[in-house]
C-alpha cells in the first residue's frame, strides 16, 4: 500500500510539475488554451500556482490528502474545460488524457489516505472526553 501510494503520488506530481514549465514560461500552446477559456494571463498563472501547491502537498506525507483534493479539483476544472471550451483537437486530446490520469491517481491516493481528511478523522478518532 505504501509503495502503491508513492508511485501514484509521484506520477501525479510529475505530470503536474511538467506542465508548469509551459505555463510559467508562457509557451504559445498554453497561452492558446487559456485564451480559449478567457483566463489569459492571470488564470494561467493562478492555475499554475495551484498545481505547484498540489504537487508539493502530494509529496509530503503529512499533507497527501490535501494535495490529492486540490489536484482533483484543478483537474476536474481542466476536464470540464475540455468538454466546454477547449475541445480535443490536435495535441489537446493527449493533454486531456494526462489530466484524467492525474485525476485518477489523486483519487486513488485520496482513498488510501482517507483517514487524513480532517473532519472524517475526527469522527473516527476515539473519544477523549
Amino acid at each position, binding site marked *: 500500500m505504501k509503495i502503491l501510494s508513492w508511485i501514484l503520488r509521484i506520477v501525479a506530481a510529475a505530470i503536474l510539475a511538467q506542465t508548469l514549465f509551459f505555463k510559467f514560461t508562457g509557451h504559445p500552446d498554453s497561452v492558446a488554451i487559456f485564451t480559449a477559456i478567457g483566463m489569459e494571463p492571470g488564470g494561467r498563472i493562478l492555475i499554475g500556482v495551484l498545481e505547484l501547491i498540489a504537487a508539493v502537498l502530494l509529496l509530503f506525507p503529512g499533507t497527501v490528502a490535501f494535495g490529492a483534493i486540490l489536484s482533483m*479539483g484543478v483537474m476536474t476544472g481542466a476536464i*470540464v474545460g475540455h468538454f466546454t471550451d477547449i475541445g480535443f483537437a490536435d495535441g489537446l486530446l493527449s493533454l486531456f488524457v494526462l489530466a484524467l490520469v492525474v485525476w485518477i491517481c489523486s483519487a486513488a491516493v485520496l482513498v488510501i489516505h482517507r483517514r487524513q481528511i480532517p473532519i472524517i478523522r475526527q469522527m473516527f478518532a476515539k473519544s477523549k472526553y
Partner: protein
Amino acid sequence: MSSLSVDLHKLSKFVNLALPVLVIGFLLAGKYVHFYFHFLTVAFLFLTIANVFYLFVQDQHPLLRNFGIVAQGRYLVESIGPELRQYLYSSDTEERPFNRIERSEIYRKAKNIDSASSFGSQKNFDTSEIKLRHSMYPSSHDDLIPYSLTFGEERGLKTAYTITKPMMISAMSYGALGQHAVRALARGAKLAGIAMNTGEGGYPKYHLMEGCDLIFQIGTAKFGVRNDEGYLDDEKLRELAGKDEIKMIEIKFSQGAKPGKGGLLPKEKITREISELRGVEMGKDVVSPPHHKECTDKTTTVAFIKHVQEVSGLPVGIKFCVGSPQQVDDLVQEMVDQDVFPDYISVDGSEGGTGAAPKSFMDRVGMPLFPALSSVNRILCKKGVRNRLKLLAAGKLINPGRQILAFAMGADAVYSARGFMLSLGCIQAMQCGNNTCPIGITTQDPALQRGLDIGTRSVRVKNYVNNTMHDLEELLAASGERSLDDLSIDNLFIPEDSTLAPLVHDKYIDSKH
C-alpha cells in the same frame, strides 16, 4: 430540542437538493458567463459527492446517513465542544476537576502574582461547606512553631528523614510525565526544599538528575525493583535505597483514581527508554496487577512492610485509598499484633488524579479524602498507635484553604500531584493518557515537550510551594494555634448537613496524639 431536529430535517432536504442544482448552475455560468465560475463548479461538485457518500455509501453514522453533509456541522461543533465550554461558556466555578478560580489561584502563586481577590467569595455558603474556625485572638507570626516532621523517628532510625515544609510532590511516574516535566518538578522541589515522590515508573533516572530528596515508590508491578516473576528483588531495592537522594520508600497499595486496580500505561506512551527503565515490552499497554504478589491478606501485608523496612534500611510508608474503614481497622490491629508499623500512611482520596484509568473506577470507587482521612486518624487514635507513625493525605489538596482542613482532620503533611502539574502550567486539557498533552507535561513527544522549559518551570514550582506555605501559615495564625500539629476537628466549622458532621459529635477522639 425537537424544533431543532425539525429544522435539521428541512435544512438537510433543502441542502441535498440545492447542491446538485448549484453545480449545474455554476457549470452553465462557467460556460456562458466566464470560465472562472468553474472554480465554484468544482467546489460544489465535491460537496455534492461528499453528500452522496454520506447519504448512500457509509453506514457508520446514522446522523450522516439521514441528513448528509449538514449533520457534519454537528460533529464539527461537538469536536470543539470542550474548548468552547472551557473558553467561552463555562462559569468560573463550573469546571471539573478544578474550576477556573481554583486553577488561577495556582497559576498566580506559581507566577508570584498577588492572589488576593475582591468583593466577595464565589463559593457556596450553604449547609455542606466546611470552614476553618478563626480565633478572636490570632497567633502572632513570631509565636508560630517552625514546622518539622521526622519520618522514622518512632523506630529510632539513623536514616530518619526530616521535612521542614508540610507539602510534598505526590507520585507521578516518568512515563505518565515526560522527562521535561519530571526534571522541572525535581528541580523545583530542590529549589523549594521539599521531597518528591518518584511514582511507580521504575528506575528514577530523570528524578535523580536534579538532586532533590526523593521518595521511591514501589508500585504493584514493582517497576525498577522486580524480578522476572514480579516479586520484589531485594538486591535492586537495596541498591536504590543506598542512593543519597532516596530518603524514603513508599509501598503503593492503591490510589484514589483507580483503587482496586493496577496502574495503566497506554502503549502510545511507551518509548524504548521507558520499556528499559521499567523492564516491560513496547507496543502493548502495560497493566499493573491490582495487588502486590507478596500481599494476599493482612498478615502477609504487614510482613511485607517489615521486609521492605529491613531491606532498605529507610523509613517506609504505605499509600492507599480507603475502601472500607473496617479493613483498615483490621490491618492496623495486625500491625499492633505484629508490632510492625509503617513509618507513614498516606491516605489518597477517591478524588485523586491519574494519567489513565477506567472511567468507572475514577468516578465510582473509593472513599473521598476527608471522611477517609478522618476515619483512619480515628482508628489509629482509638488503638493508641497514632504516635507510632505519620499520617499523610492527598486528594485535591492543591490550595492552602483545602490543605488546612486536612491538617485539622489529622494529616501531618500533605501530598499533591495535580497542584504541581498546574504550577507547571497545566491547562486541564484532560489528555494525560493520549500522549498529546498540549503543554508537554504528560507526553513523551519531544515536539510537545519542547515548550516546557525546565529552568523557568522549576522556578514556578518553587514559587507555588513558597506562596502556598505563606498562606498556610496565615491561616494557622488566624486559627489561633501555634502549629499544624495543634489543629483538630474543633478548629473546623462542619455544618449539620455535612457527611462529616458525626465527627464533631464523636468527642472521645479527635486529637493526633
